[in-house]
Every structure is written in C-alpha cells, then in structure tokens.
C-alpha cells in the first residue's frame, strides 16, 4: 500500500487550493445582456414619463415594440453563443444564468399578467427590483461594481418614491446607470 509524506500532502493541498480558487472565481457575467435590457427598460420608462408630461405624443410608443424586438434578438443570439459552450460553464455560472432569467422572467410575467395591479410606475419599480436582485447576486460573489450598481438601482427606487413628478426619470436613470452601466463596466473590464 502506498503512503504519503507530509511534504507531498502539503504540495497536493496547495494544488487543489489553486485549482478551486481559480474555478470558484470564474463568474463571468458578460455585459451585453445588461446593456441591452438596461437601455430597453430605461427607454420604456422614460417614454412613459415623457408621454405623461405631454412632451411627446402617445403615438411615439410604437418605438417600444421595436426596441423590445432588438433586445430579444440580441439576447437570443448571445444566449445561443453561450449555449454552445454550456458544457464548460461552471456551476456558479449556471446558477447566475438561472437567477438572471428567473428574476427578469418573473418581473416580465408580473408586469404583463398583473398589469392592472402594477400599472405604469409600479411595473417599472418591479423591473428595478428584479434587476437589483441580479446585481446583488453577482455582488455576493465578490463583485464590488455590481454592488455599487445595485445600490444605484435601489437609490433610484427610493428617489422615485419621493419625487412624484419625476418618478419615471428617476427609475429610468437607475436602469441606465445601474443596469446598463454595470454591463458597460463589465464589458470594458472583460468580467
């Protein structure tokens, strides 16, 4: 029967530690999803606010389905690319995509299925909370940029609550700077 010396055990444990540290750190979020959906949700909220303020005609709302189509197409293409290398995704990466799609999916479902309960700003607020959950999940894995951006989103929610005349602007700013901003920072940093 083979035995092991303490020096070998130390060497082996160090190697295992190096491998685990590398693989546990590998939560790569990519930036495209955040930019696309951050811009889309900010555009929806901003357009709604501009219509309420009578700064643009309600006929301008036609641009929103077009923006939604762009967001879906970009997400589908990017999702397809990631799906091809799904085998190599770490478990934490899979967990991240689950959190992403469950949070945003539930927000989208709530906004559509309960549109009478959660009208205009309430639906935007739900979207903000769902996006903040995604950012805080990333932050929980040691990403300080996500923490800062999540706080920006929650800050925009509180600001919107206390500025009834500017609710849409505040929420749109949170989506743009918090969500799309995080995507841009992640792309630049290659996270």
């Amino acid at each position, binding site marked *: 029967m083979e035995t092991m010396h303490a020096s070998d055990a130390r060497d082996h444990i160090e190697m295992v530690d190096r491998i685990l540290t590398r693989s546990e750190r590998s939560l790569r979020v990519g930036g495209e999803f955040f930019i696309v959906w951050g811009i889309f949700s900010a555009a929806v909220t901003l357009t709604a606010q501009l219509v309420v303020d009578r700064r643009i005609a309600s006929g301008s709302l036609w641009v929103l389905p077009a923006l939604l189509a762009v967001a879906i197409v970009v997400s589908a293409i990017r999702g397809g690319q990631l799906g091809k290398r799904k*085998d190599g995704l770490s478990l934490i990466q899979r967990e991240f995509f689950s959190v992403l799609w469950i949070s945003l999916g539930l927000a989208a479902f709530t906004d559509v299925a309960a549109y009478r309960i959660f009208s205009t700003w309430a639906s935007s607020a739900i979207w903000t909370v769902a996006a903040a959950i995604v950012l805080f999940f990333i932050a929980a894995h040691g990403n300080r940029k996500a923490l800062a951006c999540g706080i920006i989103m929650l800050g925009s929610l509180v600001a919107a609550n206390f500025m009834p005349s500017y609710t849409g602007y505040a929420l749109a700013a949170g989506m743009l700077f918090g969500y799309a901003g995080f995507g841009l920072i992640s792309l630049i940093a290659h996270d």
Partner: protein
Amino acid sequence: MDELLLSKIRLGVIAELLNVDWVTFSDLQQATQTTHGNLGAHLAKLVEAGYLAEEKVFVNRRPQTRYRLTKTGRAAFVAHVRDMQRLLEKESAS
C-alpha cells in the same frame, strides 16, 4: 488515504471537475498539462473506479469525450483531502 488519489494528476483532474459540470478531454489536458496518453490512462482509472462519468458526444460533427465528477468521486475527494489535512496536523503537532 485514497490510493487512487495519491497521484497528483488524478487529484488535479478531480479538483478541476469539482465546480463544473461536464469538461472535455482537451480542456482537462490543457488544465493538467499532461500528454494525451498519460491523461487518458489516468482518466480510465478514475472512470473504472466510478469517480468519473464519461460521455462521448458529437459537437459540430466531431466526436468529443467529456467527463463529469460522480457522487462517489466527490466523496472520495473530500475524504482524501481530509486525510491529507489530518496528516499535516499530525506532523505539525509532533
């Protein structure tokens, strides 16, 4: 100590698979920096012991062999690392 995991390469393979689902042979070769034949022999032993599951799939019409850690492999890894830690504790105590 788990005799199968006394090999640094086999232990490294298990550690590589701990946080991921399926990993291809070429990715493992890159991670462990071993030759094709050497890694193949080590992987065969781990599969035979039930520590790894092996699957052959086609990606873009090319055959690909990939591996996943089994529950048995995970338990063996945890027990082996615990044994190594005990050995180090014993050494530092003496």
